[in-house]
């Protein structure tokens, strides 16, 4: 079968799958960013118990694999009375996992904001919350954005694992098409190319643009 015919017949399934992948990506990215910010800042807290909680979370999620976490959330949590739908379980696992990696980015970036900035905010008698929000975080954001560019690509790739708990994402559709047609190159190849285009021609340029505009806004470019 010519490739065009293949696309004509199965194109809509790849499109449906891609939309689910995009939804998984957006939801898990939002979750990862929130978790990264929360635990990254907690890890800088003064009290050792607070720092300990953050460290525990980060090491727990970075030390085991995403697939293990995904299966645990989907198959084991119901035993504790918490049954999640597969779609929810999918983006929760991906977001929580990548959030742990993001927390380290946030922590590193906040710590590398020059000390003078902290002192200046203190001298202007800003409250700690205001200092963090208005002075430190905007500068930390510029420092960590390149790291986030890489992390979001890892996150996009990680969403492919949700197909293993039967979320009907791009990966899942590719598998389905493969098992009905046995046209493996076409089925998996098409999915590979879609992931590649998404990562390389949408995500990467968008992050570059964001990096530039943020740097400009704090006067660094």
């Amino acid at each position, binding site marked *: 079968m010519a490739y065009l015919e293949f696309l004509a017949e199965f194109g809509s399934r790849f499109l449906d799958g891609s939309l689910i992948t995009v939804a998984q990506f957006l939801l898990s990215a939002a979750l990862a960013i929130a978790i990264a910010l929360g635990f990254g800042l907690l890890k800088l807290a003064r009290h050792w118990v607070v720092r300990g909680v953050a460290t525990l979370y980060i*090491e*727990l999620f970075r*030390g*085991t*694999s*995403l*697939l*293990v*976490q995904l*299966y*645990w959330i989907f*198959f*084991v949590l119901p*035993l*504790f009375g918490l049954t999640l739908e597969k779609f929810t379980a999918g983006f929760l696992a991906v977001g929580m996992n990548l959030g742990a990696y993001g927390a380290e980015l946030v922590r590193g970036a906040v710590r590398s904001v020059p000390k003078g900035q902290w002192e200046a905010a203190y001298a202007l008698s800003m409250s700690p919350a205001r200092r963090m929000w208005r002075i430190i975080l905007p500068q930390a954001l510029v420092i960590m954005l390149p790291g986030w560019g890489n992390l979001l*690509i890892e996150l*996009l*790739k*990680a*969403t*492919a*694992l949700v*197909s*293993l708990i039967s979320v009907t994402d791009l*990966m899942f559709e*590719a*598998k389905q098409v*493969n098992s009905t047609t*046995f*046209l*493996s*190159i076409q089925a*998996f*190849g098409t*999915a*590979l190319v879609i*992931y*590649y285009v998404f*990562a*390389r021609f949408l995500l990467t340029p968008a992050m570059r643009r964001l990096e530039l505009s943020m740097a400009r806004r704090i006067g660094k470019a």
Partner: protein
Amino acid sequence: MFDWRWDFAWEILPRLIVATGNTLIAAGAGYLIAIVLGLVLALAQRTPLRSLSWIVREFVEFIRSTPLVLQIFFVFYVGPQFGVRLDPWTAGMIAIGLHYSAYLSEVYRGGFEAVPKGQWEACTSLSMSMRQTYVRVIIPQALPPSVAGMGNYLVGIFKDTPMLSVIGVAELMHAANAIGSENYRFLEPFTLVGIIFLAISLPSAGLIKLFESWVRRRIGID
């Protein structure tokens, strides 16, 4: 506590430990492939042949920006379409080795770029051949700084091995899945798998950090 059964946990532990051995073998073999292939990919990007280095560069980008689990399926299922039947282990090792070779080639690339220009000029002035220049001067200087950045990927490859279970490689996740569906109990196997992963990856991440800082000090980066 929450219906956790210690007797069941003890009963399945030996089976999981055997599977852990397979996981470690898979991670080790995949890493070896990645180390060698990564160097090839890094060198291929440095050839004066513009078109070749461009193709390799795009290939590396492609591998790095698509999901490993999809690559595993691709390698496993595409072979039979051309009459080449790969067993799960071979397909898995090819896929995971290839995936990580793309990452390692970036590490090597950094190492090559860090070799001072004077070294190249010295080789030219001694009229060394290209081969001699690389083998005797450049690679020995480019590799040690790379070693200091390679450890993370060893832990990374270890944590990615559960994906091999999707094509039936009998590693840890595969064993846990099998135990779970034989006994209709997923709590103990999946929790133990998580604990085993933690117990291996946390200490080895620490050891690798120590080793890397030792290498750095040895070659005088820090």
